[in-house]
Each structure stands twice: as C-alpha cells, then as structure tokens.
C-alpha cells in the first residue's frame, strides 16, 4: 500500500547509522508533502 503524503506536513527524524534525514527527504521530494523539520541524530 502506497502512503499518500500529499498536503501533509512532515517531520523527519533520521539516524546517522540507519537512514539519514537528507536521504529520507530525497525519497519524499515528489510526494507533495511539506517537510517542516528534518534532522539526523547520532547515538554513538
């Protein structure tokens, strides 16, 4: 099932050792969502 992000506001929390924020943002570039906050965290 494809998720519909059109018109949605998104907060992206990326993980440095998983999927970083910029990579998630790149995937959602054409989704129609408004990315209001994007960060990548580090736990190491």
């Amino acid at each position, binding site marked *: 099932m494809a998720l519909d992000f059109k018109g949605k506001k998104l907060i992206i929390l990326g*993980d*440095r*050792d998983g999927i*970083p*924020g*910029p*990579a998630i943002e790149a995937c959602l570039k054409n989704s129609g969502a408004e990315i209001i906050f994007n960060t990548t965290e*580090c*736990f*190491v």
Partner: protein
Amino acid sequence: MAFAVIKGVAYCLFHAPDLLVTMGTTQRLERLKNPASEYLQQLKANLRSYPEAVSYAPNQVFIGNLWPEELAEMDRPWYNKPVADASPRGRFGDIVSEELLLGLIKFADSFELVCLEKDFQEEIKQKLTATGIFTSADFQDWKEGHTLAEIGHYLETAAAEPLYYQEQLKGCIRRAHDVDEVLNAQVMLENLVAKATGIWALRRLLQNTKTAGTEIDYVIEASEEACGDMNQRGGGNFAKAIGELAGLVNATGADIRSFCSAPAHALLVAAALVKAGIYRQVVVVGGGSVAKLGMNGRDHLKKGLPLLEDVLGAFALLVSADDGRNPVIRTDIVGRHRIGSGATPQAVMEALVVEPLQRAGLKLVDVDRYAPELQNPELTEPAGAGNVPWANYKMIAALAVLRKEIERTELEGFARRHGLPGYAPTQGHIPSGVPFLGFAREGLLEGKYQRVMIIGKGSLFLARLTKLFDGISFLIEPNKAEPGQERPDGGGFRTAMAAALRRVARELQGEEG
C-alpha cells in the same frame, strides 16, 4: 615508492563511573529538566565496579588481551560473562581506575584549577608512580593538596565542579575565568580529561614502541573537544599540550577536527607528512569524551543492563618513515566521501570502499578485514541504533553482490569473513576505524591478513553548519621490502653508507701514504 608505516599503537580505557553520574551529558540534562527523576535515582545502583569493567570482554579486546575474532566466538550478552583472570594491563594499553584518573587530571592541569584533597593527592602520586607510566619527577612541582573545607568553599562560591571517587568527594575543578563560558569548570574538565587521557596513551605508546619522546617530530590530536576562549572557542591546541607532558620537546603539532572521522583524517595527514619527508615520526593522539559517558544510560537501565558506557577511551598511534618491516599506509589508495557524494548509506560506502578499490584494480573480496566504526553493539542496540559495524558490513557485502563479486546468498558470510565484532566504547572518535590498527599491524606482520581497510565516518550535521556527512578510508598492507632490505631512508642504509665512505677514505689515505 616508500610509504609511511604504522610503527606502533596504544589503546587505553579509563573507568569513570562517578564522572558518568556528575558530568555525562545525559545525566546533566536529566538533572536540569527533572531532578527527581527515577533514572537519576537508579544510577548509582547500576554502576559497574572497576574489576567488572576490567573483566568485560570488549574492554579486554580494546587493550589487546583478546583478538576481535575471539570476541566474535563468545556468546552474547558479554556483560554478564566476565573474562577469567582479566588483567587491566594489555599489550596495547591499560584499563585505568577512576582513582588514578583523578590524579591524572590533576597532572594535566597547568593552571592549578584542579584541587584534590591532600591525603588523597599524596596517595595518588605514589600510585601513579607505581604504574611505570610516571616517575616521581613528574610530581615535583605539585603543591600540597587542599582540605575538604577549602574544596567545599570553591564548590559553593566559585562555580567549581565536584570530583568524586566511589561517591566520596575527593576534589573539585575550578573555572578558569569568571565570566567566559568557554572556560567554565565543566568545559575545563572536559578538555583536561581529553588532554589527560591522551597523555597516558601517548606515554604508553612511547613505551610500547621503545621510542624516546625526543624522537617525535610532530603530534596531531584528533578528539572531539574544542579548547579556546570566548574570542576563539576552538583555538587549540591539544596536540602540543599533550606532547608537553609526554616529553616531546622536539615536536610541534596541531589539532584536526571532523567529528568521528578525525582520527582517520589525522592518520592520512600523518602518513602524508612522513612520505613527503617533512617529518620522520608523527604521533596521532586522541583522548576521551566525558560528555558521552552514560549517553544511552536511560535505555540501558530500561533493558535491565548496567551502565555500560562507563569508560573513557584514548589512543596514540606512531606513524613513521619506512623501516622495511612495519605495514605501510597506502596513501595512493584513499577513499573519500566527497561533498557531492550524497548521504545514503550506499552512496557513502561506494565513495569510501568501492571507488578507491576500483581505482587500484582491486575487488571488495581482496580486503581481508574492513574496520569501519567499531562500536560495541551491546551499547548501541538497546538504544535503537542497531549493530553499527554489522550494518556497515552488510552494506559492503551488498555492494559486492551488486558488483557480482559474490552471490546474494553469500552476503551474510561475506560480512562475517571480512568483518569484526564491535568492541569499542561509544566515545565518538574512539571507535572510528582506528581501534583495529593494533591488530591490523600485528596481523599484517604475521601474514594473518594481506590487506586491511580503515574507514572513519563522521556526523558533521551535529554542528548545524551543514547537513553533510563525512568519511575517509585507506588501505594498510604488509611491507613489501625483501628480508634484510631496508629502505633508502632507513637507519641501516645510512649506517652502511657511512661505513662505505669511511672505507673509501681509508683507501684514499692509503694510496696517498
């Protein structure tokens, strides 16, 4: 073409449970936001003793008493399976008690900011001297210690930070300026700990390599702290501050910063300086991070684990001119995460692993061991960060599949054969590739490995200046010099040349006479 070599290493750990409670960032923030929290109340009951930290298998690997491959064979969890007859002294370095650490911080203090209780200070001097890392001459300028009343006065009136050992107040550190936040007691403690632990590792490196401090030409420090004042917060220079207290009177030096990838950058710079002939012997050193003590403690307690992030790490590495024996740093096979490389794990690994190997005509399977970030998974998995080295190995293996070097079914086997278990504490720069250099050097000398890749990666985005990631990698290989052959810049060549010239001179004198 002569490359620089890895002449020796030192890796040390410093048990710091009291500093974890008082100065670790997670605990400090919790005290600010929620001083009555359950987490804070549970801390002291969940700290490990020094013997427990010594007998922890990953710590034994870090100082060289066990090979990483041996750790891989041990069932997890490791924290409840102490290593029998574990020693705090390994062939690479030491696991130091917090008692000695407090004395070491005092030793690193050049401005009389650290005040220790006088009886405790006298005891510590003796104990530090007994380690063989220090001599009594190191403490000849120490003034008498302080009374507990004086220490209490500094804590109440001078914004000092307390220093405890086994929950007993043993001293304090005072601020270095009355208004400059960059010189307050917390920052000074963090910086002095980075300096102090770096000094121990450097002194141990000199012992391990039988090198006199006077022989070192240059020091590069690669921790994650910043020292300076309010007009130049990161002015530096840790390198010379550490070298000064390790007897490196002929060296100069500077600091390199790039979050966790700084040590790998520093090693490459060191190798380049040596290869260019600017310096013959360069040390790369990094001390420990107080802020990261107990960083994931909340998650550890939730999962029923003790507070495992209770040690500071430090390393010192000696990069030297080609001696015809030690493994070489192949500065012609370097991977770099370029500004335009992108942030996905695949893009990062392609830049760091595939691109340099491809350029050198090598395959991914040609590298015996990859040493990326070697964080102990027992520390990261409870916090949701996963098994960091294993994630790296799976990505490298996936790239090998994509390049048709291995079958998809071999992915996990590749990751196991070419990987290592994580065994380093979550101290940022400490786990980032460099902990394996000691084993890599020995394995390459013994023929156990033919090729090792060191990979450093760094989270530049944490400084909020860029969203970029960072990474750099390089290969280490056995020295290809024939047995008995020394490189033109080796001492043996100079000795042979001097003997030949003396012989010619004698013959000429004979002809004339």
